[in-house]
């Protein structure tokens, strides 16, 4: 078999996973796309190991290690996503903007005016935060 077949398939799978990581909103779907990218790497490792007849079987061994690492990663990732969901009430990655520089335009004011998109986002964030806070207060009361 030509090595080009598995190599091209791995490259395309990696790019599909890349699209998913960049385009998805739900954090669990982002994790799924990360799994796709890891699997593309695994396919590359196995194909090159078989093609070059490695005596140490390093490609396949490393593919096994990556599978175990991916299992650990998905466990920790899901725990983090569940914790975020419990604290914030959402698992959309573009709503978690607490560390974003939303008020940068107010201090400098030279280069970029605060565009309405950011302002709307900040307002939505504030609304979401107050909702989450009220939910938390409700839960604790």
């Amino acid at each position: 078999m030509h090595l080009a077949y598995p190599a091209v398939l791995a490259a395309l799978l990696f790019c599909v996973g890349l699209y998913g990581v960049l385009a998805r909103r739900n954090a669990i779907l982002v994790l799924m796309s990360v799994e796709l990218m890891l699997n593309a790497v695994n396919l590359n490792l196995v194909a090159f190991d078989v093609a070059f007849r490695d005596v140490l079987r390093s490609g396949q061994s490393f593919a096994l290690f990556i599978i175990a690492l991916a299992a650990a990663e998905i466990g920790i990732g899901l725990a983090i996503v569940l914790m975020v969901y419990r604290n914030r009430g959402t698992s959309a990655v573009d709503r978690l903007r607490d560390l974003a520089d939303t008020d940068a335009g107010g201090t400098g004011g030279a280069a970029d005016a605060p565009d309405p998109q950011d302002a709307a986002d900040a307002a939505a964030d504030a609304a979401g935060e107050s909702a989450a806070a009220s939910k938390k207060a409700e839960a604790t009361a």
Partner: protein
Amino acid sequence: MTLAAETHGFLSPTGVEIVFLLTGLVTLGAAVITVTTRQLVHAALWLVVALGGLAVEYLLLTAEFVAWVQVLIYVGSVVVLLLFGLMLTRAPIGRSPDADSGNRWVALGVAGAAAVLLVTLVVDAFRTTWIDLDEPKGTTDLLGASVFRHWVLPFEALSVLLLAALVGAIVLSRKDGGSAEEVAGNPAGPVDAADDGGEG
């Protein structure tokens, strides 16, 4: 006379190549549906198809052990974990219109550019490399001897990492340490108990 057998042209594919190509198309299609569908649970189920297709590809590459590990761990446990995660975050069952974020077209551009670049590079680099699939190279026998002879130290380090991940997941997903019982038992002062128990 033996020139045709040595060059291995792309226009006369072998049976293994045809099966690999068809399985690869199914895998790629399932992966594309996984990242584009608007039904979140369907994304997890299409991921099963993609990962199972990859297991078949490993089998075609004579890497049996990796194929079965893929079926056991990915299809068996990772997808189940993802489904549990979807249920625990109350993902909508039907079509959710906001499954994709606003930078979808940027993501499409980045992924397309990466795909063109990688495919061009890979095809140009490995156009003539031929995989000899006559004898199996990934049986449990061979791979077990390799892992437990040459790769023992990474294997043991990986077990420590799995233990750390287990403990970390338990610590992260505990409900506010011991304060949940405290809140339930003592409703008079719930605010302090809820605030200081996060890290356990």
